[in-house]
């Protein structure tokens, strides 16, 4: 019994994390936080730094939530990492943050959220930045 949340240090990512914490408390399950990078560029601002991870760790510990934080850098994109983790831990919910993308933007850049929504085997909860 696990909830998987895809985290990025942006407002959308924060919203997803907040929602995921609420869900985890409600159902009293383990929360698995995934923050990944492909690792192919020198700078990736979506990869959380140690202090950020530490503050999430503290936040979860204070709330008394059973949690695991993972930061895989394996050359896979974020969607694949979240889906892998969900499958591996037999997740019953995936929480992600959505951001507005134009159709053209989606066409060119692809959409992590879309891939997760379409390919996940469990319910996906998509939240927007507040």
């Amino acid at each position, binding site marked *: 019994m696990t909830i998987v949340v895809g985290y990025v240090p942006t407002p959308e990512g924060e919203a997803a994390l907040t929602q995921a914490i609420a869900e985890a408390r409600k159902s009293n399950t383990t929360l698995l936080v995934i923050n990944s990078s492909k*690792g*192919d560029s020198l*700078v990736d601002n979506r990869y959380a730094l140690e202090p950020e991870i530490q503050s999430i760790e503290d936040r979860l510990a204070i709330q008394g939530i059973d949690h695991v934080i993972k930061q895989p850098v394996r050359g896979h994109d974020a969607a694949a990492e979240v889906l892998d983790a969900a499958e591996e831990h037999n997740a019953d919910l995936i929480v992600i943050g959505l951001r507005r993308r134009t159709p053209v933007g989606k066409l060119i850049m692809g959409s992590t959220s879309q891939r997760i929504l379409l390919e996940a085997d469990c319910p996906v909860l998509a939240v927007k930045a507040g």
Partner: protein
Amino acid sequence: MDVWSSLMDGFATALTPMNLLYAVIGVLLGTAVGVLPGLGPAMTVALLLPVTQVLEPTSAFIMFAGIYYGGMYGGSTTSILLNTPGESSSVITAIEGNKMAKAGRAAQALATAAIGSFVAGTIGTALLAMFAPIVVQFAVSLGSPSYFAIMVLALLAVTAVLGSSRLRGFSALGLGLAIGLVGAGSGQARLTFGIPLLTDGIDIVVVAVAIFALGEALWVAAHLRRTPLHAIPVGQPWMGKSDWKRSWKPWLRGTAFGFPFGALPAGGAEIPTFLSYVTEKRLSKHPEEFGHGAIEGVAGPEAANNASAAGTLTPMLALGLPTNATAAVMLAAFTGYGIQPGPQLFASQGPLVWALIASLFIGNFLLLIINLPLAPLWAKLLQLPRPYLYAGILFFATLGAYSVNLQAFDLVLLLVFGALGFMMRRFGLPVLPLILGVILGPRLEDQLRKALKLSGGDPLGPNGLFGEPIAVVVYIIVAIILVWPLLFKLYRRARPAAVSMPATSMPATRSGASEPQEAGGAVSHGSHRADGNPGGDGGDGDG
């Protein structure tokens, strides 16, 4: 005044709209490759060698000059914002610059680096314009024996002084000289292995592109994934009054260190930046700030590396002696145009040389006005996925190598030397001695043959290799360079406590990389060459 009027003619050439455009392209390209660790001006110029064969020489060299100076500028941005020096000459800048950025003073650090580079580059270029003709006057009086001796010195100095290991340096030099021997240039087919296509020798463009572009791209591809870093966000660079006050003296002192070291064979940019840093630390009124982001520690070394860039061009233009990788590749470009580098260059190609020098002034100015407002944009460049970048480099490398002679055989050579370049990086062999060996080897042999012809085949006779006083002096210096480590060892054995090596000049920690909690095995923490081993990579580095 002769220099003055020649220089003004140079400005007239360099300021024509087309040449100005090439200067802008060069400056932008140079900054971009300077910002990206692993790409350097040497690689860029090598990749552009074939492209520029269709350009006029003047335009091509104006662009190369822009790339050369731009690379120096760009390196500081990465050092300051990321603590990952884009180039070996910006290693020192990273020490204080990144601390300043972490303390919220990134804007001031970038500003003092950019303005300091401008000041040092301008003074350095002025010194180049002043000294190069004097060196030429002296050099034209040199005979073949002296010229041969000076080339031997340049090769030995680059090999023995730079880099951590002499054995590796000499191995690389040997490889380079061997590659330079291939062909029938001497009237006798050497190292052609019976392959008729090798009788014309190996095109220097193919070697340069293979070693710098292909070797580097393969090397990066071999450990492509790494934990990403965060660039420190920055706005518009600017400096307060107190920053100016604390910066201008280090700029001037840095220039004074940088220029002479750049002009010396094997001087390079690392030693003067280090010296400048140490001096500023000693002279500073705020020594306690050093190690925590002292602006002097950015201003001095940055000025020093730009001044040394100008200094490097002095022996390159006046004697035809390149002392770093970029200058070596630029020299290859001269030969590509059929222009004979050496003391005759100022006489035979006066307008070209002076236009080049004038374009250095212009490039410097362009860098200042382009880079101060664009610093945040350059930092964005670091988010580029590197596979795209290196795929592009491989494409241009292949295209370039093929286009030189339109021969498929050159692609085979490209792959062979690319693999060699990869192996050299893998085993820590510096690439600078190799490329110098390839470029200077045939010219060295030429001078030796001339000298021996004059002396009637008697190397030790009155007109032989030791027949000129300059040659004898140079050989003494060569002997000192070779014997020095031995003497140093003896001295240290005699007085073990008295001699302590200066502290390592590299930033000890690379911060910003939070350890991934899982998948540690899958992450290749391939520390980049630029921040791992500045001595061992003449390749992308000190250009």
